[in-house]
């Protein structure tokens, strides 16, 4: 019998904001532990929240072997630590910092109300086993999400500004908020054209949801994916390269998957130069269907690992956003919810807040629009590229640009 230990711990201080004032301060310190036991090709798991008795967990996990959940795969045995816990702002200083930030916003953006929260988080994820696996990821990060609403507006909210990362600079954040709010206050018309250059932030998962769902190895091997049986086929634009990414230096993400596997440079290409290279897989799908193993196991702390997708990266071009736009303004999707693909890949998404952007600055706020296309067009003939630059220095996002139908709602 082999034993594997999992630990996940989040410590968080959150300063919560209502109407541009601090409303509350909350603290959280939650740890979750689990043991996986492996025996005879089966797995048993047991977990607990808070302090736990590991001998009891082991007994429960061993008892769960009786359910005969198959797991005949080699256990991981690598060792690596990533520690990204440099101080950003201390927990005790966070409320004062947010208070000062809100003081500036009350003065400089008195036409808006801001709400939601700013958090300092410390996250720990560990995985070890008696085969030598010893992985540890520690990160300290700031998460700022401010919902804004113009004081004269009768909407619940008009937009949001925020970022997640390991650096903070008040001046940059204020500049960021000011630029968005100023653009919001400048309504502009949708330029006359049916097909527009539309720019998405690369972390906006909605417009990539079909790609992520249908690149799942489980859907692929069962014929339920649009891409089934198409490994080696050129499906998309040759400029389009799509990776699974668990790069802890680029994003707040653990660098190993839930089977303890690490990819080289934390990346695995799924679509390379428009050609489908492989669907993403965990040990099971890689082994059963002879597919490349992409380290794509995801699960709750006390669950059996299963195939899943934790993060992605679209290969950046060598061009800036301005160069990609080449003089034509972009419809930049800032806030959108409710969009979806049909099973056949047609995509439509209402955009609640979009800006016109010239590649260097925000021009103004567009009326509510709907963007639509098809997955094979968006990332195929209509794909223009992904920018090499960020639109704000606190944001990690690059801009993904493609031509789409845009209509006013």
């Amino acid at each position, binding site marked *: 019998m082999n034993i594997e230990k999992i630990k996940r711990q989040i410590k968080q201080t959150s300063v*919560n904001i*209502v*109407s541009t*004032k601090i*409303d*509350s*301060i*909350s*603290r*959280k*310190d*939650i*740890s979750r532990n689990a043991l996986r036991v492996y025996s005879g090709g089966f797995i048993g*798991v047991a977990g*607990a*929240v*808070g302090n736990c008795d590991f001998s009891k967990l082991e007994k429960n996990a061993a008892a*769960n072997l009786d*359910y*005969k*959940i*198959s797991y005949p795969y080699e256990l991981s045995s690598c060792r690596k630590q990533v520690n990204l816990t440099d101080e950003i702002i201390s927990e005790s200083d966070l409320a004062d910092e947010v208070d000062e930030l809100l003081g500036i916003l009350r003065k400089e953006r008195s036409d808006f*109300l801001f709400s939601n929260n700013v958090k300092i988080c410390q996250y720990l994820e560990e995985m070890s086993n008696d085969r030598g696996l010893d992985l540890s990821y520690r990160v300290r990060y700031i998460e700022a999400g401010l919902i804004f*609403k113009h*004081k*004269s*507006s*009768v*909407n*619940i*909210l008009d937009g949001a500004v925020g970022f997640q990362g390991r650096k903070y600079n008040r001046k940059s954040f204020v500049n960021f908020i000011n630029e968005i709010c100023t653009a919001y206050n400048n309504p502009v018309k949708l330029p006359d054209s049916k097909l527009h250059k539309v720019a998405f932030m690369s972390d906006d998962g909605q417009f990539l949801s079909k790609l992520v769902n249908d690149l799942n190895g*489980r*859907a692929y091997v*069962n*014929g*339920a994916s*649009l891409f*089934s049986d198409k490994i080696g086929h050129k499906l998309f634009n040759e400029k389009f390269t799509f990776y699974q990414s668990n790069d802890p230096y680029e994003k707040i993400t653990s660098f190993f998957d839930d089977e303890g596997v690490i990819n080289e440079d934390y990346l695995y290409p799924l679509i390379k130069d428009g050609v489908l290279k492989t669907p993403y897989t965990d040990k099971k799908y890689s082994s059963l269907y002879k597919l490349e193993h992409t380290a794509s196991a995801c699960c709750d702390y*006390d*669950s*059996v690992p*299963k195939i899943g997708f934790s993060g992605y990266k679209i290969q950046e071009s060598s061009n800036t956003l301005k160069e990609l736009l080449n003089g034509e303004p972009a419809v930049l999707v800032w806030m959108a*919810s*409710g*969009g*979806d*693909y*049909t*099973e*056949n890949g*047609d*995509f*439509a*998404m*209402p955009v*609640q807040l979009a800006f016109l952007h010239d590649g260097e600055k925000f021009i103004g706020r567009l009326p*509510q629009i*709907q963007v*639509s296309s098809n997955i094979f067009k968006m990332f195929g003939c209509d794909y223009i590229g992904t920018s090499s630059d960020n639109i704000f220095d606190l944001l990690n996002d690059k801009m993904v640009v493609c031509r789409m139908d845009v209509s006013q*709602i």
Partner: protein
Amino acid sequence: MFHFPKNLYSDVRIETVFETQIRYLQGELEEIKTREINGVMIRIFDGKKWYYSSITEIDQIQAELDKLAEFAVPDPDINSNQVVKKFEVNTGEYVNSFKNDVKNIPVGLKDNFLKRYFYLFKENKNIKLWRASYIDKNTEKKFFSSKGSNLKFTSQISGVNYHLKMSDGKSHFADKFSRCYNFFNDADLTKEIKDFIDECDNFLKSANPVKPGKYTVVLSPQAAGIFAHESFGHKSEADFMLGDEAMKNEWKIGKKVGADILTIVDEGGVFGSGYIPFDDEGTKTGKSFLIKNGTLAGRLHSAVTAAELDERLTGNARAVNFEFEPIVRMTSTYILPGNLTEDEVFAGVKEGVFIKSVIHGSGLSTFTLAPALAYMIRDGKISEPVNISVATGNVFETLGEIDGLSDKCEIISMSEGGCGKGEQWPLGVSFGGPYVRVKKLNIQ
């Protein structure tokens, strides 16, 4: 009992959650687990700010209360604070003796119930991928406050979900079959599941892309419930009005917001996945009319929002679990039925769209519904199946466009997923309504 810090308002919510999760993929067992999670949310209010802490060690509650109190500024007059005055003081045990308490049902019985219908999925060659899950959850909450509340109450859900993805080599289709109750219910679902699979199979083979445009649309009770929840329910959550004079002026009770036949209600006492006897501030839940005969009739409150707007408590302060503070949330939100038969709702439509099942919805000033099963309506009859990405509309225009309601209301519960607001997801809610006819919706 706790020693609540002096001159501050405090409350303690202790949660014990029992859960079962059984998951199969293509008939192969992937997961089977039961777990019990204990956690505590502690809140302190000094009249100006709130201080929250979530912990997992029950024996540390007093120490954490004392620690939080150090951040607060005591106010000898705290009991005169309008928010503190609003809090109800309720005591007693409200432990529902749910039939078939899920804690007492052997896992094997739950597993066998889920597996009973697997053969139906294996029989259909176009089902390329299917997943099945059984999920139950029994939640016991104890609530204590410095005003004297001392409550114990429970809620429970139990349900099955079958997700399928179909392909015939040319077309693809995905949907799910779900049932959820407040007790372990192993009633025979064979016919319902078989009919569902047959309908999906027919849809796969026959559906064509819809011609985009504006159509008269009939919403099924599920679609109508999601519409009610997304389009108007979220706008009834009064926390968005805090400190916002424009909103207070705009959202005055009595304002005309929809068609005369439209009435929307939120009710925590309705059994289903939105059922709660008390909210997470210890307020007894009730029935709130959000829209009555097309007129804004009420909104949903926590103590903070009720105090600011000087309105009555509604029992809608809810947290997704002990890790979070309660915020204003819905419970069971539904459209009241009208006076047409189901056939009469369709009969008035020359060319339109019937949205039968919905994958998800969203709602700000524009709402969206992403349908799975949808059909054209021709000359009052449900006709050929159509693929639709999203149905969208402006919320207020659409509420005014409702011109037909059938005479029976159906409440939909779910054991998977739930409502999301900010970082608090998934919260158990239910929703529903009758068949609802909307004169004009944008179909893409």
